[in-house]
């Protein structure tokens, strides 16, 4: 394709807790890092898309970066905010709106679990008041059913968390950098069985930004650009098992992840077997367990064996969440999807240090999934 778009700069404000900086300041920091990486300045940027859930408007980053008059669009798509911003920048560059674009996500959530309001979700007060409106409950109910249908035991959930924290310990910018033993995870508090404390990620803070331009100009700016082969976002169909549902349909239908993944592979002209390094949404161990198969990397039920075998480790056949994923980095909702893209770029550039996937990876994959039933997938190729 001669209309391809490349990532020429990446920038991250490390995830975790940064009391001294607002969410917007962390977003602006990430943009400056990405501009530096691309060797350009903010005034060279022609279009920007960005968002956060709790950190305020993205276009207010211009107050930090410079008021250059460019179209700066606020994106609000929950967990798919970063993916939607990225897809929008790509479309803008492809349509000739600008030569260089920025996608940015940032966030700063209050401590503790998210605090939803029933009315915001089209639900009545009783649903929240009686103790049914919790994301952790949803993940547990979905995981419990999935494990039952596919004959998977709790061992798989422990191994996913164990690998996440093992990889996090190798990642200098990760929030959680302490390896946890199998016993520590398996014996941690039963938050929502079958999911335990160390199988859940926490809301966090941070910022992530990408600089993009047309692939044919990419070499002007970067010695190692990364080509975006696909960036796809999809929403749920009737019958999908999603968060905050007092009732589920009689017939289940494929998840938005499945639809986004299929479309991305088709667009990129590659298959799951071609992917060298993978980032999957791991809000909790159960979500990642489900996502390994929903994204086509194995059959449903095969995960237990893959995990036990070490196939998803950095040196395995399907390296997943090499930077520790959401479990080790926390989840600033607006920034989380772009962190995944940055980790894949780092891997494809061979700059991942102690957590580098061996053998010069060429193709990478990112996947986010979240409320109220959205998924975004990218397929990235070393340029």
């Amino acid at each position, binding site marked *: 394709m001669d209309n391809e778009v490349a990532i020429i700069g990446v920038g991250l404000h490390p995830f975790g807790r940064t009391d001294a900086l607002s969410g917007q300041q962390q977003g602006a920091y990430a943009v400056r890092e990405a501009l530096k990486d691309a060797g350009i300045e903010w005034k060279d940027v022609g279009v920007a898309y960005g968002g956060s859930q709790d950190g305020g408007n993205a276009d207010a980053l211009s107050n930090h970066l410079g008021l250059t008059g460019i179209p700066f669009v606020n994106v609000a798509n929950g967990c798919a905010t970063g993916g939607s911003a990225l897809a929008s920048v790509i479309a803008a560059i492809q349509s000739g709106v600008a030569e260089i674009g920025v996608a940015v996500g940032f966030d700063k959530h209050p401590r*503790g*679990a998210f*605090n*939803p*309001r*029933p009315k915001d979700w089209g639900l*009545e*007060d*009783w649903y*929240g*008041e*009686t*103790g*049914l*409106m*919790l994301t952790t*409950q949803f993940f*547990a*109910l*979905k995981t*419990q*059913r999935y494990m*039952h249908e596919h004959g998977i035991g709790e061992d798989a959930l422990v191994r996913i968390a164990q690998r996440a924290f093992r990889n996090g310990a190798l990642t200098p910018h990760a929030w959680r950098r302490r390896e946890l033993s199998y016993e520590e995870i398996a014996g941690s*508090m*039963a*938050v*929502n*069985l*079958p*999911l335990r404390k160390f199988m859940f990620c926490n809301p966090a803070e941070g910022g992530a930004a990408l600089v993009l331009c047309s692939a044919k100009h990419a070499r002007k700016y970067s010695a190692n650009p990364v080509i975006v082969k696909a960036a796809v976002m999809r929403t749920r169909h*009737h*019958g999908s098992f999603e968060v905050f*549902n*007092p*009732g*589920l*349909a*009689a*017939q289940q239908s494929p998840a938005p992840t499945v639809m986004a993944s299929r479309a991305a592979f088709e667009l990129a002209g590659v298959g799951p077997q071609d992917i060298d390094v993978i980032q999957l949404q791991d809000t909790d161990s159960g979500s990642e367990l489900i996502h390994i198969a929903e994204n086509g990397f194995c059959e449903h039920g095969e995960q237990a064996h893959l995990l036990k075998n070490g196939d998803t480790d950095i040196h395995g056949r399907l390296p997943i969440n090499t930077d520790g994923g959401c479990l080790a980095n926390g989840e600033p909702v607006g920034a989380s999807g772009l962190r995944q893209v940055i980790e894949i770029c780092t891997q494809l550039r061979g700059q991942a240090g102690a957590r580098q996937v061996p053998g010069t990876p060429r193709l990478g994959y990112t996947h986010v999934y979240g409320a109220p039933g959205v998924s975004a997938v990218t397929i990235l190729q070393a340029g």
Partner: protein
Amino acid sequence: MKLDTPKKLACPELLDLAGGRPALLGSRCRACGEVYFPASHGCTRCCATDMEPYRVGSEGTLWSWTIQGFQPKAPYNGGESEADFKPYGVGYVEMPSGVKVESRLSVADPALLAIGMPMILTLQAYRQVPGEEPVYTYAFAPA
């Protein structure tokens, strides 16, 4: 579940208490037959808007379950102190029409819960604050 004394309900519009035993109320799409709980004004399956009331019933089988192990923050209003909080079961129960109803469960012991077991609807006082009338919601119990 004795229904002879009137109870304060968190969600009275979801329940039919006539006939001595609680039953859940929903709706059904007149165009494609899809059943919804709670009642819906439109059909997300076929996009029609012609819905009729539908009695979802009182009995089903456990489709999935978890135990709520920590005290939820607002909007939960169980009203107990953190020290008094007791974990409660939550599940989806598959009803005869196939729709799965999310519900509190009468038991919170993993040893007493298994996917596929028969369940029956009851009422549960989820909010019991001294000096106040208890507030009830629907819940499923092992049949």
